[in-house]
């Protein structure tokens, strides 16, 4: 547990001190969403119709953008090898790093999302569900992404490759995330998609640290 806290605190401190990271991710999120009214046209009903999907896709891409750096810097300067040699198992290291990553990038996205929902003219019924769905969904995205980020360490053209590997696996989160928000807007019970999102989160929390740790082990060999 002390190892978990040490890595978490280190990553958060690094992110805060050198960090434009969260600001950049939120900026990307905002700009990506703002492109849609300009591209599709500012007609309020159209925007309200596509708002949940656009917000989720933009959140997905923002998380993806930040994932490449999850292990990369530590891999380059060798601190990842020290972490692998340290007493806490590599799975715990992965969990700590993913939690730090989510606090730095996922949480700011969730805070920015309602503001963007207003810009997208989303009906007010969906706001609470949007936040709830993002709270369940974005940690799952970070966890799935950790597996991909570990696998592409040291490869040629890592960033594009990461997108190709991870985006197909993000699709279930996207489907049920948008499903929950649209159910709330349409006045239907959003229980089923929320439960499924929770199930995805629980499954990724249980399985992805193992996958990511296996990925890191073969990268460090």
């Amino acid at each position, binding site marked *: 547990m002390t190892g978990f806290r040490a890595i978490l605190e280190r990553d958060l401190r690094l992110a805060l001190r050198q960090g434009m990271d969260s600001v950049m991710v939120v900026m990307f999120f905002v700009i990506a969403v703002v492109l849609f009214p300009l591209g599709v046209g500012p007609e309020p009903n159209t925007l309200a119709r596509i708002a949940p999907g656009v917000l989720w896709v933009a959140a997905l891409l923002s998380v993806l953008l930040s994932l490449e750096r999850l292990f990369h810097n530590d891999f380059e300067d060798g601190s990842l090898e020290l972490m692998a040699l340290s007493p806490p198992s590599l799975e715990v290291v992965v969990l700590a790093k993913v939690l730090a990553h989510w606090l730095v990038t996922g949480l700011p996205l969730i805070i920015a999302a309602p503001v963007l929902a207003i810009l997208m003219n989303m009906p007010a019924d969906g706001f609470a569900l949007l936040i709830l769905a993002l709270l369940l969904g974005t940690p799952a995205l970070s966890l799935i992404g950790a597996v991909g980020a570990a*696998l592409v360490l040291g490869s040629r*053209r890592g960033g594009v*490759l990461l997108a190709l590997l991870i985006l197909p696996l993000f699709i279930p989160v996207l489907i049920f995330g948008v499903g929950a928000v649209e159910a709330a807007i349409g006045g239907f019970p959003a229980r089923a998609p929320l439960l499924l999102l929770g199930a995805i989160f629980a499954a990724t929390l249980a399985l992805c640290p193992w996958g990511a740790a296996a990925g890191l082990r073969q990268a460090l060999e």
Partner: protein
Amino acid sequence: MLNYFANPRRFMKLSGILTPWMAGATLILAGAGLYLGLFASPADYQQGETVRIMYVHVPAAWMALFCYTGLAISAAVGLIWKHPVADVAARASAPIGACFTFLALFTGALWGKPMWGTWWVWDARLTSMLVLFFLYLGYMALNSAFDDPQRGTKASAILAMVGFVNVPIIKFSVDWWNTLHQPASILRMDGPTIHPDMLWPLFLMIGAATTYYLWVLMLRMRRDLTEGRVRARRQIQAEEAGA
């Protein structure tokens, strides 16, 4: 059993014997299946002649899942027991499976246009098959993304195992969701719901697709292993020339 096949030379000998048999079986099964499917079987009372697309579509979709299962199992065996031939088998399965997946999607679109009135719908079965296609592409991209081929093999093996969650989702997508794609009609608890006149050519074509997969898989594996041996020998020659 695992150890027995870990010797590439033994595999080369065995596959050398089996490959022509597989080729022959593929030709006979596909010939019989195509004849029965295209000429001897009746047209469907609702779908008319388009039902014959099924004789390609169903085997291709079946093999798309079969290849991925084989790929994931070989990848796991290669990763856990460091089994050299299993690694080669996993790498060789991927392009074949990707082609079958594409064929299933393509023939499905051809069938969907006259029957559903659209080339593509975003229902659960079609979407999960598309995801499977992306998983194959991702596997192949990751496999070849490293300067050290060993790393590519291991990284893509982990990816193949992670991506396996998609296979049961595809299989049961027609039961879990209300899809436009029809539910299973062969592997059912209460027996198949297809008339034998159509079931027979379908089974023959599935058999042909399976033997085709084994045939091409062994050809690709033999090529990979030979390539490895040529590279190793060149390296030895270069070292001798240098020394």
